[in-house]
């Protein structure tokens, strides 16, 4: 195997991938690796690729070190930390030519198992551990820290940053801090002796991280729910949404415990299933509490009947849908944006629902809070459409912000005073012409404002009727209400290309991470596209205007059936032929490389770049 010297030094711009075994303690070690680089002021984009398993199956952690601060996956690997014999061949194959392969050389391997075009860095990790530790579990646990030490030497990562992180992580557990320090040093020394450190790919301190924080979207959503005034959460464990409900619990313990009594200003129910979760949310919201559930596709499927009831009974319910690969028994640990139709038109009958699409944890926090205002204002279910990539991955993202002047908008709720004053109350009466009626909380007034809640078969005063005209009247009001929703959901973000163009591109959610990088690449390639990032459904007119203002508009989605395109065509009544789908749905987060390639290809076909092509003539 070759070990020639690389001339071209690449600082703060490379991809390291860790191949590990699930439950072997690597997760925390790899996390330290990423965070140490961040502490050096160098941005990273890190992603965990894990199986539907608790212990024993392969798991990967990919860290893109990117001084430019790109947030998506780049594709390709420069340094592979191959700690899992079972996936060795696949892992080795994934390396870019000229890359580096770090592995445990305790057991010798056939030369055939290596590649000629990569540099091999073997280190007898098991041997070192066996020599140092007696307890089997310690041997396994500290092996991770030892390779972390080696990497810090190879990539020039400041060990003091790692040690500081030890201190924070094991606060008060001196024995652990010590043991980890020793293991780290051991790894560093061994690497410094064995290899020419640092490698051409290396980390150099910088100031590109700034105020940004490193956090996952599920935590951000949970925090958003706290700030949004949610008091009731009902959920059923479902990957990848479980950690959302669980962090809501931990944030509430910190932020919502009554100082005086030590009692809780919130209630969390782990229900028996998703039907019960949404039922609890509906009951709580009907009774005036802000309530939410966190779930994923299979849960949304089970909630369909209740969602129809909530639409017709006009109950403000908030759902966080952390989308994953479909269906129920498939790809729970993979990411997708494939529940758009099942959420937008959830339930049988004529129903339409409000969706909002955050692009990263920062926006997830903001939208997570806003969702409750939207739900109360519109008296209807609101879906915060996340995905596994946003929800379960740690993102380097702008810090959370809150305007203390802001007040919770509880929407149209008629008070005891108003009722007492004789104000006319009709639960389904469109008093303001915006399609939104007033509601009362149960128990408000001894003799006024009580009503019986039903799906339909009711008139404007909530009296039972099976009359056709009353039904139509109510259904049309619901459409007016949906009209009103257009101006309340977050507006799309529209930005012009650097050069005038007749083509555009539309995306939403986690795709943004790869999009900006791809658009930069396309511009270099002479392909200029005006941009629209969708953030809410139903769509404001600006969406249709953007599309009709261009000859061709690419729609980038992470699903098979171009579901967002369907929503736009249905709701905006535009000609589908203008929309060109770029679809990625293998369960991995979409990459800039993929988008760039696909758009460049189709751009030629659809003759998107006339200027450039004439220039070439």
């Amino acid at each position, binding site marked *: 195997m070759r070990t020639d010297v690389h001339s071209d030094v690449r600082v703060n711009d490379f991809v390291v991938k860790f191949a590990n075994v699930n439950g072997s303690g690597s997760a925390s070690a790899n996390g330290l690796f990423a965070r140490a680089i961040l502490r050096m002021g160098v941005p990273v984009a890190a992603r965990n690729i894990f199986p539907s398993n608790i212990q024993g199956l392969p798991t990967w952690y990919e860290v893109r070190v990117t001084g430019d601060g790109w947030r998506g996956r780049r594709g390709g690997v420069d340094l592979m930390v191959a700690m899992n014999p079972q996936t060795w061949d696949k892992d080795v194959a994934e390396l870019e030519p000229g890359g580096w392969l770090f592995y445990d050389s305790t057991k010798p391997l056939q030369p055939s198992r290596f590649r000629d075009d990569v540099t091999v860095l073997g280190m007898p990790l098991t041997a070192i551990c066996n020599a140092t530790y007696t307890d089997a579990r310690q041997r396994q646990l500290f092996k991770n820290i030892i390779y972390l030490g080696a990497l810090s030497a190879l990539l020039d990562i400041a060990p003091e940053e790692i040690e500081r992180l030890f201190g924070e992580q094991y606060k008060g557990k001196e024995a652990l801090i010590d043991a980890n320090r020793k293991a780290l040093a051991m790894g560093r020394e061994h690497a410094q002796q064995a290899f020419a450190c640092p490698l051409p790919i290396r980390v150099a301190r910088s100031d590109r991280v700034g105020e940004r924080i490193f956090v996952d979207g599920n935590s951000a959503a949970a925090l958003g729910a*706290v700030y949004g005034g949610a008091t009731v959460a009902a959920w059923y464990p479902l990957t990848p949404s479980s950690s959302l409900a669980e962090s809501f619990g931990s944030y509430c313990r910190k932020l919502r415990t009554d100082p005086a009594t030590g009692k809780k*200003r919130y209630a969390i129910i782990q229900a028996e299933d998703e039907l019960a979760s949404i039922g609890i949310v509906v009951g709580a919201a009907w009774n005036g509490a802000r*309530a939410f559930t966190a779930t994923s596709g299979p849960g949304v499927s089970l909630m369909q009947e209740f969602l129809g009831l909530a639409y017709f009974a006009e109950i403000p319910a908030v759902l966080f849908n952390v989308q994953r690969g479909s269906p129920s028994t498939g790809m729970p640990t993979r990411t997708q944006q494939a529940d758009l139709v099942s959420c937008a038109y959830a339930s049988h009958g004529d129903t339409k629902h409000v969706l909002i699409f955050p692009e990263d944890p920062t926006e997830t926090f903001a939208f997570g809070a806003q969702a409750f205002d939207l739900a109360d204002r519109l008296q209807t279910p609101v879906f915060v459409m996340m995905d596994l990539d946003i929800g379960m991955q740690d993102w380097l993202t702008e810090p959370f912000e809150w305007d203390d002047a802001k007040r919770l908008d509880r929407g149209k709720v008629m008070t005891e005073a108003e009722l007492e004053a004789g104000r006319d109350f009709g639960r389904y009466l469109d008093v303001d012409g915006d399609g939104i009626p007033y509601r009362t909380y149960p128990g408000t*007034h001894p003799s006024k404002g009580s009503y019986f809640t039903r799906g339909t078969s009711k008139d404007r005063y909530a009296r039972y009727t099976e009359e056709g005209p009353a039904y139509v009247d109510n259904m049309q009001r619901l459409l007016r209400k949906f009209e009103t929703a257009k101006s309340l959901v977050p507006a799309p973000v529209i930005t012009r290309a650097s050069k005038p163009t007749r083509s555009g591109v539309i995306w939403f959610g986690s795709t943004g991470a790869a999009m900006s990088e791809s658009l930069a690449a396309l511009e270099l390639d002479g392909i200029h596209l005006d941009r629209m990032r969708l953030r809410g459904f139903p769509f404001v007119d600006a969406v249709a205007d953007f599309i009709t203002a261009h000859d061709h508009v690419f729609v980038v989605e992470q699903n098979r059936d171009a579901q967002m395109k369907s929503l736009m065509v249905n709701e905006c009544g535009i000609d589908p032929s203008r929309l060109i789908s770029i679809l990625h749905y293998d369960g991995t987060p979409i990459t800039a490389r993929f988008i760039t390639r696909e758009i460049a290809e189709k751009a030629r076909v659809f003759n998107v770049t006339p200027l450039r092509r004439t220039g070439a003539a």
Partner: protein
Amino acid sequence: MTYLAKPKIHHPSLARNALGFTRRDYEGAISTLCAGCGHDSISAAIIQAFYELDVPPHRVAKLSGIGCSSKTPTYFLGNSHGFNSVHGRMPSVLTGAALANRDLIYLGVSGDGDSASIGLGQFAHVMRRGVNMVYIVENNGVYGLTKGQFSATADKGSKSKRGAVNSDEPIDLVTLAITLGATFVARSFSGDKEQLVPLIKAAVAHRGAAFIDVLSPCVAFNNHPGSTKSYDYVREHNESVNFLDFISPREEITTEYAPGEARTVVLHDGGTVRLHKVGRHYDPSDRAAALGYLETHRAAGEIVTGLIYLHADSADMHDALDTIETPLNALGDTDLVPGSAALVRLNASLR
């Protein structure tokens, strides 16, 4: 509204309770159930109980699933908010409502199909959770609203109006509720106001999950073997057109019998049920004994009525969750929103 003669709820007087409300203040819209339906008798008992309890009507929330029984909340407590939710899922909706405001009284009304068939899971879990509520199942062994199919409480071997025979084991919701941890479990008969009204009052007073299984004969479809051998125009007619074309208006079935006694009640079509009322000295606090008592009488073909199991000083869901005394739906911005300062600290911890 209903257009056939049916027993009206009587107003012997316009007497007022401690709060100055008359019984009318606890009534609702006129029932649209079949004349003589047991469910109407239960509605009357509920009205009576809440009147006697001196509860302000609007401080009660009525929740139900779907079915004839689940329709009844429209027919009582007209000044309370009501929620006719979805079939079999009332328990979860009630749980949510109870979480939002611990100060109201929660009355869940359901049917045997709603609670024992489609709703069995939610029925079980709401009992386990100790939600502070009164949960009444108006149990007729059939799906009334969908025209007389068997529910999960129908006796094995019983025959439906359409002649189908039920082969599944019946579910005894009382046994189930006890084994699942309900802390107040009772059974009664729709026509036995003497027993039913006090049970409802006690259930309201109880803190925690209170369940009352009320046998409530279905005029139209009750599934006991028709015993009238006498020639009957109507039966013959309905048989020949083979659907329920004509439903004879009936009187409600009432019964009165003393604690410790057993009584056979004859139903509209001549079928019977044998009820056994727990005696004055029956001790409802012993869970094992209660289960045994039910099992022995079941074996003897008797249905036990009365307060069958009681765990007096039980903790409810809010105790378990340790929620604040103020209803959650009454908390304001300052109670709920930590503000920007806290956020700054949080951001710092994420770098």
